[in-house]
């Protein structure tokens, strides 16, 4: 039995910065073969991008999270070094508590390691439907090649035992190459010693080794090769036994940058969405090791892979969005929302769960306290809201006017819209009104009456703990 990919989703943040902007700022650009790259917004990180890609994959598969029984989250740079973030991702995507979940990290190979483990689970009949999400946003020091290359993106795959894109072959290879790419404990940034020949040897040996381990010589239409920059994958063409045309066919590095652990997954997702029949996917991980996967497509794969939208940033705006040139949160206190209080509200913040009054049928958000309509104090029935709604009231919170929790975000991302949205019940019966912050568009885009959709973003960080929750963005009509 060979597991198959039944649906894919991919996501890239809306911001782009060009190589030219780096050249203007630094006099040079150290990431060859990259013309522009994706930049995560101030309220995005690997976890929120994983949510975006995961949601897209589920929608492509016409599934709800409850249909998944095995979940993986992969990132070389998860927002926390220690904490099982798959638990948060599971809650955001409404994957059942009984599902198995895993976090994969530690190298840029984590995305394919997660696919590998998901395949194992299916083959061992320990899972029926697997969701693998790889998301990454590497960072380097502002003046180095890692940062110049560092992009952002995420891909998610629904895997089942049968489907339109079978993973027919796989092999792995590991060899110690210390110092090729690493991130020290407690450091925000990834680095490499830049020993050119040594780095290249690590790259080609592991990729060649993994491909050599495949049962058959691959002859793919498209090759998704790990891309720390826009040049290295082509240097590994010989080792991988593929043409540079096959690498170029669906490459993401040139316009999205180095996607770290999501590099091969996003490229694979694009290749499948592009309709390629045969794809060779080969990752390379810091350390070093590689995974090679052969995907043969016999039928169309449901895909939600839109990586094109982009708003250009100047280099100064880039530094602002990254928080490089902003101060931290303000001191003070008052009206602090404790973590236990926050935790109680997660079904609302992650999944927009409202409550229906069993006595009069009206909706309450949040679902607590007396019914807003009839005053009944009975227990609400949990009722999910539709993730699309209509703006009823809006304002723009201008610079310096944000509540203290949001001061760091505002200083990074600028003015934002604060709105009230009417969301209908998912089953169409009733409306609940919810306050929300706007994201992904300028505040002017949030006019009353405009349709919006909810997504999950970073809200604020307090005491080292980032609170994630829904925000809204305009929906193009």
């Amino acid at each position: 039995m060979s597991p198959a990919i039944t649906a894919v989703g991919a996501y890239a943040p809306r911001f782009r910065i060009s190589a030219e902007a780096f050249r203007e700022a630094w006099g040079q650009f150290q990431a060859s073969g990259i013309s522009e790259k994706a930049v995560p917004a101030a309220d995005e990180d690997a976890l929120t991008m994983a949510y975006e890609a995961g949601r897209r994959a589920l929608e492509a598969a016409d599934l709800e999270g409850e249909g998944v029984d095995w979940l993986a989250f992969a990132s070389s740079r998860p927002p926390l070094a220690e904490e099982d973030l798959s638990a948060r991702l599971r809650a955001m995507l409404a994957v059942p508590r009984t599902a198995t979940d895993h976090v994969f990290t530690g190298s840029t190979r984590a995305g394919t390691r997660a696919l590998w483990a998901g395949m194992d689970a299916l083959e061992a009949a320990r899972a029926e439907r697997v969701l693998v999400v790889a998301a990454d946003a590497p960072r380097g020091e502002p003046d180095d090649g890692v940062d110049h290359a560092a992009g952002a993106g995420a891909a998610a795959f629904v895997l089942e035992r049968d489907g339109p894109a079978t993973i027919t072959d796989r092999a792995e290879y590991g060899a110690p190459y210390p110092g090729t790419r690493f991130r020290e404990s407690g450091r925000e940034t990834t680095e490499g010693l830049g020993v050119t020949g040594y780095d290249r040897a690590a790259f080609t040996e592991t990729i060649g080794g993994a491909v050599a381990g495949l049962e058959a010589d691959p002859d793919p239409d498209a090759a998704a090769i790990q891309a720390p920059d826009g040049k290295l994958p082509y240097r590994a063409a010989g080792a991988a036994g593929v043409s540079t045309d096959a690498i170029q066919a669906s490459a993401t590095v040139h316009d999205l940058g180095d996607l770290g652990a999501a590099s091969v997954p996003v490229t694979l997702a694009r290749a499948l969405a592009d309709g390629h029949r045969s794809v060779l996917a080969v990752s390379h991980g810091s350390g070093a090791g590689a995974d090679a996967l052969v995907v043969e497509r016999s039928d169309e794969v449901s895909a939600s892979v839109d990586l094109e939208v982009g708003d250009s940033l100047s280099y100064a705006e880039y530094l602002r969005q990254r928080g490089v040139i902003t101060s931290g949160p303000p001191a003070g206190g008052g009206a602090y929302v404790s973590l236990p209080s926050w935790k109680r509200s997660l079904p609302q913040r992650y999944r927009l769960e409202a409550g229906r009054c069993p006595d009069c049928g009206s909706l309450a958000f949040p679902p607590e306290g007396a019914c807003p309509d009839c005053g009944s104090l009975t227990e609400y029935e949990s009722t999910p809201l539709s993730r699309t709604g209509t703006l009823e009231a809006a304002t723009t919170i201008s610079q310096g006017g944000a509540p203290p929790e949001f001061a760091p975000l505002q200083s990074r991302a600028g003015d934002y819209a604060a709105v009230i949205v009417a969301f209908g019940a998912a089953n169409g019966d009733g409306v609940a009104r919810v306050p929300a912050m706007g994201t992904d568009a300028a505040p002017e885009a949030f006019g009353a009456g405009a349709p919006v959709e909810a997504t999950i973003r970073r809200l604020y960080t307090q005491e080292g703990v980032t609170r994630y929750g829904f925000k809204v963005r305009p929906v193009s009509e």
Partner: protein
Amino acid sequence: MREAYLVGAGQSSYGAFPEESYRSLFRTAFEATAESVPKGLEPDEIDEAVVGTLGVGGRQLGLSGPAVTEHVGLHGVPCTRVENACAASGYAVRQAVQAVRSGMADVVLAGGFEVMSDTSADATKYWLGVSGETEWERLSGTTFSGTYAQMASVHMREYGTTREQLSRVAVKNHANGAKNPHAQLGFECSLEDAESAPVVADPLTLYHCCPTSDGAACALIASEDVVSEYTDDPIRVAGVGAGSDRVGLFQREDYASIPASQRAAEAAYEMAGVGPDDVDFAEVHDCFSIAELLAYEDLGFCERGEAGELVESGYTELEGDLPVNTSGGLKSKGHPIGATGAGQVVEAFKQLSGTAGDRQVEGASRGLTHNVGGSGGAAVVHVFERAGAADSSTGVDA
């Protein structure tokens, strides 16, 4: 039930006073109150005290009521702190009236204070945040200015209210505040000043927002049994009304009004047996200029949607038919949260006792105060009238 009377009221100046403490500010207000009582007041005649405050420079004190009453020598007098955000001392006055009417006390001191200028701008924002809906509204990035801006945007959309009309509230209140020696921002502002000021939360500019303030204010309420010991020209507390609501704007049915104000006004008018046409002046809660426009409608000074035109017409100017915020309002006089409601009563007392100086409303015999907590989670309205003025009322229903 017994009648209750307003026999004195006084306040400190509002502003930033680094040399003053919350206690010294309260002392200033207390002494001004005692001096305002026509026949004088001996502290030992006070049976009870009710004090409104949110906090002291961002600190919360457990016994902030007794802390100020002991400071002015009211040892042993029962003192309660009430807290309803910006409506704290409006509610303190209401509690004083209740105590007098119930017969539990004959002379009650109602007051409030706040110190807001001694914390950093960041810490002040934390502190102000406690008065809103915290878990959802504030954590969706909204401040008070943002919430009122949302109300303004809806009012503008539904009724065609303009930003210029919002600015006219500021222009009017600054004109009045310039005549008030206690005002924090006692200078005039032009329409252009208000229009060109930086935007705080669209559509509200800096001039559409009140300042943060230090200050204290007190009012003395006496029963019908003892009122003649204090004055020969008593001011009756004709009507009291209060209402509360969902704390978050998003939880209310209507974003372009403050239902708690409507409930409070309805109750106060009914008790007083008068209607909005029967008041000669009003002190209304104008923490943001849209709040004053909403108050016109919620208090029945005009129909829904007509507040913008009302302010534009000059109806609510000092020389107009119904002068509103003769003190300068929160906008110009200042908004020391806990003192605000009592401070409005101070202006009502001055107007009704004919001591309002340059801003005196001629022939004022009945006035209204309107104090809102948060963005409308609580509201309280009082109708005061000079004894004998009841005869001139038309008894129109609210």
